[in-house]
């Protein structure tokens, strides 16, 4: 307790202290006055004695100075000093420091210490100010000074003889005795003051107690205030104001007691537990609910106790809960309220329960005097919350496990939940999307018109009915990726049929559509094949009849040249129709009659002469046949027809000459390839490639090239059945064909013929066991075919590479400029936007010579080399490529030393 508190807590002390203080002040004043008086007296006595001394000295020294009797002057000085010492003994007010008698020239005439101040030499002590001395009252100039060890008084006096100045007398007095007397005076006064102060304290204490006794009685009685039993007989016997005060206090006690009773009733009627704290954290009141929740019988166990130590001492796990960390305590110290719902309170029996509590400080005239704490047992509520949370968790897990994308909105159409599939398709994280309107996250347009599609959730919330999106809806993700989606939206309705929100379910059907497209194309081709086959079959039969009867007729007209000629022409035309129908039948035939194991390389070699004769001399036919080509089971005759047809098509595409490459290789097509090429099946294939640098085909032509009768050649140059015949051949032998063509660049046809099953050691298993080269470099993938772009990204990411993607050369250049860490450029050749893959690579290397480049194309490396682009011809990965092909080519490219 500090001094102020000690003082302020007792009226007796205050009165005593004030009284003592007043007396002390008076004493101090008196002491100072008398001290001052005594000091003045001392000073005056000192001066008086000094004056007498001066006067004595001056009475003779004038004569001595006049008559130049220095010895006599010195005798006078020394005798004066001796007389003074004899006169005052140890009782003097001063000692004589120095007596100097100077002549008018300032030379020492006589001195009390001639050893230090030789006679007839310039005096080196402090001389007086001449004007001050001249005007000094009584001709005496007094100056005070402080020597090294004492206070001194220096007196200057003119010395005259018969009215004429003859010199100056200097008397310096050591005031140490005077100062010592003053100090002694102070000590004496201090002793008197101390004694009197003790007396004052005693008087003040007695008086203070006499004054404060009635107040003490009242103070002691105040503890009973509110009890209704306060009585103050000692004060009521008095006849002064204390009597009235006593009566007023008794009435106040009675009123307070009644008021407290009402408050207690009110507090006990509430369901919430309430208790009060004083400034020390001790309990001042509790209500019944508090007692019940804490398990106490009555308030006696709580009142006056420190509530933190009693009910809030530990955390739920039993670890100590220091009061300094208690929220109630902290808030209390800052005179703030607090609200906590995640702590426990402890009952009387040692058990605890979860509580939600509020603490409010109590102020009395802006000073915090305590706090009121209200709390509830929230055990049941927490259990209910936990169940609800578990249910929500289950729901969330269910939603997250759904294979389709799910977005849930509130009744305003703002997103409240998204599952991971939705996050992946929209490109928005849950945190980013939560609270946003659905259209901001779920941006959909019509695939064909590219116009925005109406928000399905808005319709759901408005109508309360399930809504399906129209087909050909494209979702544009946050990064601009487009997904073909199908979806539906439904309202979330509670048991009261109130709409709480909406749920949107959608899926990426891009691949599905592609597969369906391929299937439709295949089915279309099958239908066309069936239709044309059916027609051709019937037509062929009729032609056979016509040819037969024409043959008969020819025999009858053997001697008639002109009719025989007509019959011959008709027969030739009919045979030609039969040839056409045969080709048509060939297209429509699904099964082969003749199937043998063939070495396609050997077959090609056999046909080499035929191929050479089939093309113009300007067409250069080149062969690149794999040494270890697998065998395949096909009809050699049909194979020959098909290849010859393709060679002739290439010739026709190069009217001015060119190059035709025939290449064979073994290839394994994996599941990923099949996913993008629904008409293919995974497995080992013999790949036969025919690549020319002819006029090429546009996309539209490529889509119809295998349809019967579709041709781009002039009417008389083609029937439009050649490619359909090749298609039929391939299909009959469970193969498939891929076209890669660019207008004015060329065409590459890849025919995939299944590997003969009689051949052992499928490389599929080898490939599965093969350890792919990996890396962690950064690769920029550029391809305008988005599916291939993502496939390459997927392959490279799985192999450990960091990737960036671009759909055209301009995007790629921007990305290269922004990301200097890119190590390799993996780009398609032909892309829209005016810059092809070669030009892109050239520009990229100019900006970063160390950049590695890998080209991918449907054309073969030989074709590209023939097209005059040898720089990148050795870094070519032909499409389609497997993951292993990409892994090996990327690794080789990155490991290749700079050229």
């Amino acid at each position, binding site marked *: 307790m500090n001094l102020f508190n000690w003082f302020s807590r007792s009226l007796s002390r205050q009165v005593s202290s004030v009284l003592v203080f007043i007396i002390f002040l008076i004493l101090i004043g008196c002491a100072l006055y008398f001290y001052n008086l005594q000091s003045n007296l001392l000073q005056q006595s000192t001066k008086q004695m000094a004056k007498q001394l001066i006067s004595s000295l001056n009475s003779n020294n004038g004569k001595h100075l006049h008559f130049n009797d*220095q*010895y006599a002057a010195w005798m006078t000085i*020394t005798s004066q000093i001796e007389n003074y010492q004899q006169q005052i003994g140890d009782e003097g007010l001063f000692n004589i420091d120095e007596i100097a008698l100077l002549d008018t020239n300032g030379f020492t005439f006589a001195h009390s210490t001639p050893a230090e101040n030789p*006679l007839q030499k310039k005096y080196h002590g402090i001389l007086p100010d001449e004007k001050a001395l001249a005007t000094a009252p009584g001709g005496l100039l007094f100056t005070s000074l402080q020597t090294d060890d004492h206070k001194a008084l220096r007196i200057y006096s003119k010395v005259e003889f018969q009215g004429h100045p003859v010199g100056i007398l200097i008397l310096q007095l050591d005031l140490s005795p005077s100062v010592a007397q003053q100090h002694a005076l102070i000590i004496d006064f201090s002793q008197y003051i101390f004694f009197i102060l003790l007396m004052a304290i005693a008087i003040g204490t007695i008086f203070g107690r006499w004054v404060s006794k009635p107040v003490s009685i009242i103070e002691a009685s105040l503890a009973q205030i509110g009890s209704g039993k306060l009585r103050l007989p000692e004060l009521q016997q008095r006849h002064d104001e204390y009597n009235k005060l006593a009566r007023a206090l008794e009435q106040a006690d009675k009123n307070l007691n009644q008021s407290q009773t009402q408050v207690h009733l009110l507090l006990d009627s509430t369901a919430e537990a309430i208790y009060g704290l004083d400034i020390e954290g001790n309990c001042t009141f509790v209500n019944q609910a508090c007692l019940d929740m804490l398990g106490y019988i009555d308030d006696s166990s709580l009142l006056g106790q420190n509530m933190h130590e009693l009910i809030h001492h530990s955390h739920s796990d039993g670890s100590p809960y220091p009061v300094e960390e208690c929220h109630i305590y902290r808030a209390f110290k800052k005179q703030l309220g607090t609200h906590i719902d995640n702590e426990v309170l402890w009952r009387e029996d040692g058990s605890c329960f979860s509580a939600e509590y509020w603490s409010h400080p109590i102020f009395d005239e802006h000073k915090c005097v305590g706090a009121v704490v209200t709390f509830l047992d929230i055990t049941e509520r927490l259990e209910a919350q936990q169940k609800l949370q578990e249910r929500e968790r289950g729901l969330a897990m269910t939603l997250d496990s759904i294979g389709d994308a799910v977005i849930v909105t509130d009744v305003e159409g703002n997103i409240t939940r998204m599952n991971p599939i939705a996050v992946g398709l929209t490109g928005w994280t849950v945190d980013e999307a939560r609270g946003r309107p659905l259209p901001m996250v779920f941006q959909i347009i019509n695939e064909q018109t590219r116009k925005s599609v109406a928000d399905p959730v808005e319709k759901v919330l408005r109508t309360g009915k399930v809504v399906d999106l129209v087909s050909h809806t494209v979702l544009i993700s946050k990064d601009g990726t487009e997904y073909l989606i199908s979806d539906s939206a439904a309202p979330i309705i509670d048991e009261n049929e109130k709409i709480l929100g909406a749920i949107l379910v959608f899926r990426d059907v891009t691949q599905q559509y592609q597969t369906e497209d391929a299937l439709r194309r295949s089915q279309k081709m099958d239908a066309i094949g069936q239709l044309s086959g059916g027609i051709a079959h019937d037509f062929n039969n009729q032609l056979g009849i016509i040819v037969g009867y024409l043959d008969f007729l020819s025999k009858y007209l053997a001697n008639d040249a002109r009719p025989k000629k007509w019959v011959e022409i008709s027969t030739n035309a009919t045979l030609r129709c039969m040839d056409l129908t045969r080709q048509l039948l060939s297209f429509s035939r699904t099964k082969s009659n003749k199937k043998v194991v063939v070495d396609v390389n050997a077959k090609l070699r056999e046909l080499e002469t035929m191929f050479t004769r089939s093309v113009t001399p300007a067409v250069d036919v080149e062969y690149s046949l794999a040494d270890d080509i697998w065998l395949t089971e096909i009809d050699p005759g049909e194979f020959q027809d098909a290849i010859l047809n393709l060679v002739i098509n290439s010739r026709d595409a190069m009217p001015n000459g060119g190059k035709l490459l025939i290449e064979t290789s073994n290839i394994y097509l994996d599941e990923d390839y099949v996913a993008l090429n629904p008409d293919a099946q995974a497995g080992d294939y013999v790949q036969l490639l025919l690549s020319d640098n002819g006029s090429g085909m546009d996309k539209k032509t490529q889509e119809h090239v295998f349809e019967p009768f579709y041709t781009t050649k002039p009417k008389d140059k083609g029937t439009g059945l050649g490619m359909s015949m090749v298609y039929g051949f391939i299909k009959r032998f469970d193969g498939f064909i891929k076209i890669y063509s660019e207008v004015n660049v060329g065409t590459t046809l890849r025919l995939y013929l299944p590997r003969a099953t009689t051949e052992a050691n499928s490389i599929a298993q080898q490939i599965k066991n093969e350890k792919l080269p990996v890396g962690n470099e950064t690769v920029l993938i550029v391809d305008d075919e988005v599916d291939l772009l993502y496939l390459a990204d997927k392959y490279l990411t799985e192999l450990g590479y960091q990737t960036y993607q671009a759909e055209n050369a301009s995007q790629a250049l921007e990305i290269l400029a922004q990301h200097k860490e890119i190590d390799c450029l993996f780009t398609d050749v032909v892309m829209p936007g005016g810059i092809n893959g070669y030009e892109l690579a050239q520009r990229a290397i100019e900006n970063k010579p160390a950049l590695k480049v890998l080209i991918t194309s449907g054309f073969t490396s030989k074709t590209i080399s023939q097209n005059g682009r040898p720089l990148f011809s050795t870094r070519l990965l032909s499409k389609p490529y497997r993951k292993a092909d990409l892994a090996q080519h990327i690794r080789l490219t990155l490991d290749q030393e700079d050229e």
Partner: protein
Amino acid sequence: MTNKHFFYYLLTISLLISGSSGLAHATETVPQPFVVTGVIINSHSGNLIERFTNYLSTKSGYPLQVAYVNKYSELSRVLRENPKAVGWTCGAPYVQDNEADGQQLVAVPLFRNKPVYHSLILTRSDRSEKTLADFKDGVLAYSDPHSNSGFLSPQYALLKQGIDIKKHFRLLLHTGSHEGSITALLNNLADVAAVDEYIWTAYLKTHPEAGKRLHEIKRMGPYPFTPIVAGNEVNEKDINKISSILLKMNEDSEGKKLLAEFHLDGFVKKQPAFYQPVKDMLREVNSNKGN
């Protein structure tokens, strides 16, 4: 005025005239001053001079009474103005007064059984000067400007070195007595002092510590001792009476006691020519004053 009153007036006048005559006649029984200066006495003399004077007076029948003056010039004046007075002067003033006023030589004290003494040049023991001349610009303490040992002697000694005593020192401190000169030395008033050997010897007996603090750097003399003299109207008979008493002082106990207190061995009769050396010094010093 009535006749009665005139008679009484004449009677009064007659009585006054006869009283004056009687008074004049009674003058010869009035004590004459025995003049002494502070030069010759010291602080421990006490009433020695009074007792000595009474002794002389009683023994010689020539009534004497001590008269103290503070300088020889005053002594000379008293004897001049009181020609029947007796005094104890110094050699140099006697020589001058003998010439000027007919001062008479009565007797000469014996100091160490000789009627002579020296003039001592004293300084403090911590001083390094060796001669009087070394104290240039210092302070010379002297007893009396007419003192032989106190002033004339050092003056003469410096004159012999071509030094004017009045210019050589920054201050000639007149102390009024040899003891004063000693005191001045001891209290650093003076740097050097010329002191009567007789006084110095007597001083040392009562102030032996002074012998450690002061030391003698020069001894000048011997000079004729300070004489007992009489004014020019003291008749020969009285002079002889006084002189006889002085000469026979050691023949009676009181005289011996007095001599012992004076630290003297007696007195001797000398002729004025005994003081010729002093006269010579004076002449030489005075003749140099005009230069």
